[in-house]
Each structure stands twice: as structure tokens, then as C-alpha cells.
């Protein structure tokens, strides 16, 4: 197996070598262990899914290393046809292991297969899954890709979650210790936070900063030009929110390398971070509401002269909503809208499709399904038999149904007030 990443990168160097070193993902680890200990030919493979850099591949590798397994890895997105898959994996899946060591297969980036050009790729993997004499773990970012449906049904899904900032920090700290680097806690926290739960990218960032260093301070983020654009947005926001004149609020955004639309989102996401008095928040949003209207007017009339007013409202309007500048350090956050949209797109598309199906069945609109049926379906689904029928009719599995009904983990629990996805605070 050729690996593109040389062993010398920190990601590779500081990878977990046993499950004890593995960070978080307790549920996934438990499910993996139960599965592999009971595995016999004919059992379903596991399908690991979740965001990047949270340990899907690393878990399998760590376990293989610890348990002394013969790990056969393959990156599905490199092999775009059925014959290539067969060629690479086909025989070894059927045969007993040569070394006499138990063998474990890891097929990475399965969703990379789902292109049109992957002639028969999904079928080939399905065939392997059924015929294999060895356990197989499949890895995907988004298992709800329509092309992966067959694979999804043929395997057990195991979810991986974004890692907590604290967990990432801990790993970064350990890496620093091993590299002989003395690092500020605050710097590690910032690196961890901006990775948005992706340990791999955090380690990569740390390596960029820390190669050849013995001391790392918070200011090194700036001196290295590390994420320079975002840092200057933070500075701009600080100036804007503290400004006491329309002119200085406007000028705050000068030289920031972002479009007005992007800046709009940055401001919108941070009003409530800066202002504490409700009257100020209300006033600031009133200004933003007008800025928004001007944006739409520009789009519909193509009168770009109006842009000046839109910017006035979103800078001066927001800045002057306060009585006086807060003397505090505000941790501004990344605009959450883009993050949410990216993260929830698949879920939303899947729900929409399922609600359409229900709409056809029940002769009503998807909106009626959501508002008039869904609340009752949640209650009915407490009944296991109904739950099963509903899942079958909608062609989703247990997890798909849970997501669809808007239930959180655990059977029949009600949706919680807090949406954990919005905690991307920096």
C-alpha cells in the first residue's frame, strides 16, 4: 500500500498507536470493538461516517497496530472502476491471510466513488462485502449520498462526531511535549478552535507554526501570517464595534479582504457577542435589516449606487446602536451560516425527499407533512412496530429515521432546545 503522506508529518508521527491513545469517539470505539470481536464471515461490514479529521481511519489503523492485524487499506476514490477494485482487493478478500495473521480491510473515502465515471464501483464493493472472508470497514464522509444507498443498507453505520476543543487541545499539548515545544495555552486553544473539530487540520496547523521552534506564543499566529485574512477580520470587527462615529465604523472595514456580503455575515454573527443591552441588540438588528433590504434592492434594480447605503447601515448603523463602547475583550466568532449550511445540506436534502414521499402517500404538501403530520409521527414512532413500518415506507434506516423525525440520540426523546451544531465559537 502506497501512502501519500510521508511518515514524517506530525499527523502521522503523533497518530494514536493504540486505542488507549485514541481521542474521544467513545461510542464509535465501543461499537467497533464489539463488532470486530464477534465478527465471522457473513457479518455486515461497518460503515464509519462523519466529518474529516476526527479519527475514522485512525481508529482502524490504531487497532490493527495494537492487535497485530494485517491491515489492507484501499482508497476507494483512487479506483474508479469495478475491474480495478476487483484487481486490488478481490483476491485478497477471498483468501486466507498469507502470514497467518488475521486480516482487516479498510476501504477509505467510499463516497469518492459515487461519481458517474465509477462504472460499477458500488456493485463491486457490494460484491466484496458479501463474499469477504475478512472483516471490512468502509469509511465515508456522507453516507446519505444516494449512490451509496445499497452500501449503506448492507452495512452497519457508525457515526463519528466532531472533536471537542478541549480534546484537540490535549492532543496538541502532547504533540508539543514530544516535539520539545513550549506553547501558550491560548495559542493551542485558538488552533484547536479554528479547526472546527478536525484534529488532523489542527495538527497540520500546529506543525506549520511549530516546526523548528521551541517556544510558541499567541502572537506567533500573527507573526507567521497564519490565517492572516481572518485575523484582520477580527481586528476590523473590534474596531467597528467600538467605533463611535459612522465614518470610523465604515473605515474599519477598509483593507479587509472580504466581499460586503461576507462582511455582512461576520457582523451579523457577532452583534450578540459584543452587545449585552437588549435595546442595543434590537437597534443593531434593525440597522442590519435595512442593510439587508438595500442589498436586495441593489440586486433587483442593479443600482449599485445603493451599495453605499447598505454598507452605511451595516457598519455605522450597527456601531451606533450602542450607548458606549464595551470595555471588554470579545471573542468574535466565525459566521455560522456557511458552516451550518455546509454541514446540514445532505440532511436537508434527505428530509425533503422523504417528506415528498410522505406527501404523495398522504395527498398533501411537504409543508403539511412537516407541520401537521410530523409532530404526531414522532409520538407514533415510540411504538416499535410503527417505527419499523415508517422506516420501511421511507426506505431509511434507524439512524436516517431518527434524523428525519428530528429526534436526538436515544429512542423517542424529544428534540432538544439547544442545537449543538452552533457551538463553533472562536
Amino acid at each position, binding site marked *: 500500500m502506497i501512502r501519500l503522506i510521508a511518515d514524517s508529518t506530525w499527523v502521522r508521527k503523533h497518530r494514536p498507536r493504540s486505542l488507549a491513545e485514541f481521542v474521544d469517539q467513545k461510542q464509535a470505539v465501543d461499537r467497533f470493538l464489539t463488532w470486530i470481536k464477534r465478527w465471522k464471515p457473513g457479518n455486515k461490514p461497518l460503515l464509519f461516517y462523519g466529518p474529516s479529521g476526527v479519527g475514522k481511519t485512525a481508529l482502524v489503523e490504531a487497532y490493527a497496530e495494537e492487535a497485530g492485524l494485517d491491515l489492507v487499506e484501499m482508497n476507494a476514490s483512487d479506483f474508479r472502476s469495478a475491474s480495478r477494485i476487483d484487481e486490488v482487493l478481490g483476491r485478497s478478500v477471498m483468501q486466507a491471510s498469507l502470514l497467518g495473521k488475521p486480516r482487516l480491510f479498510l476501504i477509505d473515502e467510499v463516497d469518492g466513488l459515487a461519481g458517474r465515471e465509477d462504472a460499477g464501483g458500488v456493485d463491486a464493493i457490494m460484491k466484496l462485502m458479501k463474499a469477504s472472508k475478512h472483516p471490512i470497514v468502509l469509511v465515508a464522509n456522507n453516507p446519505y449520498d444516494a449512490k451509496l444507498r445499497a452500501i449503506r443498507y448492507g452495512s452497519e453505520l457508525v457515526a463519528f462526531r466532531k472533536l471537542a476543543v478541549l480534546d484537540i487541545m490535549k492532543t496538541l499539548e502532547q504533540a508539543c511535549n514530544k516535539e520539545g515545544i513550549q506553547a501558550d495555552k491560548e495559542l493551542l486553544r485558538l488552533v484547536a478552535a479554528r479547526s472546527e473539530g478536525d484534529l488532523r487540520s489542527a495538527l497540520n496547523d500546529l506543525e506549520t507554526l511549530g516546526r523548528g521552534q521551541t517556544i510558541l506564543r499567541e502572537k506567533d499566529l500573527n507573526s507567521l501570517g497564519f490565517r492572516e485574512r481572518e485575523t484582520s477580520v477580527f481586528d476590523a470587527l473590534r474596531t467597528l464595534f467600538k467605533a463611535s462615529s459612522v465614518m470610523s465604523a465604515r473605515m474599519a472595514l477598509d483593507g479587509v479582504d472580504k466581499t460586503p456580503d461576507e462582511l455582512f455575515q461576520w457582523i*451579523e454573527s457577532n452583534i*450578540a457577542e459584543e452587545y449585552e443591552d*437588549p*435595546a442595543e*441588540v*434590537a437597534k*443593531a*438588528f*434593525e440597522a*442590519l*435589516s435595512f442593510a*439587508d*433590504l438595500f*442589498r*436586495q*434592492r441593489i*440586486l*433587483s434594480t442593479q443600482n449599485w449606487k445603493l451599495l453605499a447605503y447598505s454598507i452605511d447601515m451595516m457598519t455605522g448603523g450597527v456601531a451606533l446602536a450602542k450607548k458606549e463602547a464595551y470595555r471588554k475583550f470579545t471573542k468574535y466568532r466565525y459566521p455560522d*451560516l456557511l458552516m*451550518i*449550511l455546509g454541514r*446540514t445540506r445532505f*440532511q*436537508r436534502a434527505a*428530509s*425533503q425527499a422523504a417528506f415528498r414521499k410522505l*406527501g*404523495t*402517500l*398522504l*395527498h*398533501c*404538501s*411537504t*409543508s*403539511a407533512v*412537516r*407541520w*401537521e*403530520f410530523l*409532530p*404526531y409521527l*414522532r*409520538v*407514533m414512532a*415510540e*411504538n416499535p412496530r*410503527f417505527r419499523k*413500518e*415508517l422506516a*420501511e*415506507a421511507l426506505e431509511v434506516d434507524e439512524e436516517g429515521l431518527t434524523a428525519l423525525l*428530528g429526534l436526538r440520540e436515544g429512542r423517542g426523546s*424529544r*428534540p432538544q*432546545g*439547544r*442545537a449543538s*451544531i*452552533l457551538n463553533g465559537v472562536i
Partner: protein
Amino acid sequence: MAIGARVEVNVKDSLEIWAEKYRPKRLDDIIDQRHVAERVSAFVKERNVPHMMYAGPPGSGKTTMALCVAEELFGETRRQNTLETNASDERGIDTVRRKIKDFARIRTIGDVPFKLIILDEADALTSEAQQALRRTMESFTRTARFILCVNYSSRVIEPIQSRCAVFRFKPLVKEDTMAFIDRIANGEGLKLDPEAAEAVIHLAEGDLRKVANLLQAAAAKGKGVTEATIYDVAAQARPDDVRVMLESALEGNFREAREKLLDMLYTQGLAADDILREIHRQIYSLDVSEQQKVRLLEKLGEFEFRVSQGGSEHIQLEAFLAQCLLLAKPQR
């Protein structure tokens, strides 16, 4: 329950939703709206129906009436000869141009003189789409008939109204609802005390879909259908996301309210129109003074107007939540 009865249904239909299971299949089975059913029935017997418009409140049987007409006209070939479209999902002109025209153009199957196009929630069609529809109705009168179901006939342009026989559906009276409860109770072998039935009638407010859902959800709990289980289900099923959002804002917790809003818009994918309507409905019963309700309603109207002017739903709704903060009782 008869066990043998389910042999013929295919997999998809194995999902039993009572609202669907107890939907009348023939015009004679329709409990309420007899004044409409009888006249429609007369048309169907002559096998010549005009374009029709059914106007009335939700859950009063408009869609059911339309489906019964299709069933009685076409019987086994109903699926091939009927196009069902919900305008609230496809409100653009494309639907009329492509889907409806394509369907109307193709010849009928079997010995039926025309096809049937059921346009549910037709008052949600944009005005361009309605203009296009008007022409389509005219040019395909020989091959297709339309049934438009609407909540408000005034939202449909005059020329379309004048091409239709308009039927008004009345809100259901208590006796109608009771008859429907009996039908379900008999069909499912449910034992239902009078208090439980009263509770259903009270909560459903004349909406038969809600009656069926309440009963099925209560029965699914498997503990017998009593007044308590009915209220329990109703409390559980109350769409409380909007309420939680408003209450957070009124407690002065803007961040939490905002998270909830973003969750509804982008994770659950709810339509802003629906959220606005639900906020409107909730305001009446919020724990604030009547004066304050008036202020909230005024603000909500203003922000809804801004949305209609092209403002982004997300920003305008947020601005509304920020206004709610002003009514927050001082904490601590």
C-alpha cells in the same frame, strides 16, 4: 381486525396512517359537506364534470372530495388518468408549463372522456403561474378537467374562478367530527370513553386529519385511549420550536433564540412562511401583556412585509427576535 385484508397491498402501502386509511373512497362515504357531495355526484354520474374549485378551511375534505371524484370517474385507471400536484411544493410557472401541460396533452387511457388534474393548495401558485394555468385550462378543456383546492378563493385570479364551478366547504360541526371518531374507533376496535372523544373534538377544531392523527398517536402508546392520553399526545405534538424560540427571546436570551431560528431554517429546513405563520399564531397566547402583544404583532407585520420586499428571511426574522428582547422582563 381482519388479518386477510392486507394480503394485496404492496410494501409501500403497508405504512398505515389513519388519516389516509379512513379517508372516504367514494362520494357517498363523505360524512360532511353533503351539500357539495350531492351536486358533485350528479356531475360524476353523467360522466361530465366541469372545472371545479373547492374552497374551504384545512381538513374540511377538499382533497378527499377530489380524490373521490377521480375514483368514481376512473376506478382502476385512476392513477394513469389523474395528476395530483401540490402547488405549495411547486408554485412556479414551470409546473404549469411542463408538468400540467405534458399531462393534459397525452390521450386518456381506457374509455374515459377526459383526464383529471387535481391542483391542491392552488392559491399558493404565483400570479404568473395562475395566468399560465388560465390558458392551459382553456386550451385543454376537451382532454382535461381541473379541480383546484384552495383555502381562500380570493387568492385565485378572477379569470380562473369564472372558469370553474365554485364549491364552498363549511367548517365541520361537532357531529361530523364525532361520526368520524366513531368510524375510526369501530375500524380499529378502539375503546374510547366520552371524555376522550370530547377531548379529541375540542383539540381538533374541526380538522379531521388532526382527529385521525390524535387517535393514532394515542393508540400507539398502547395504554388505551383516554382523555389523559389524548391531552398527553397533544402536548407532545405541539410544535414547540417556535414557542421555545419566542420564549428565549422574551427572557432576554437572544443567542438561544437565534440558534433555534437557524436550526429551524437550516437544519430542519422549515419554510420561513410557515415559521412566520406559527409565530403569529403563538403571539396571542404568549405570557406578555395585551399591549405588548399588539406591539409584537405590529413588528411581526413589518418584518413580514420586509421579507415580501425581498429582504432575507433569516435576517428579518432575527431582527424580529431582537425586538422581542425589548419586552424581556429584567432578569436578576
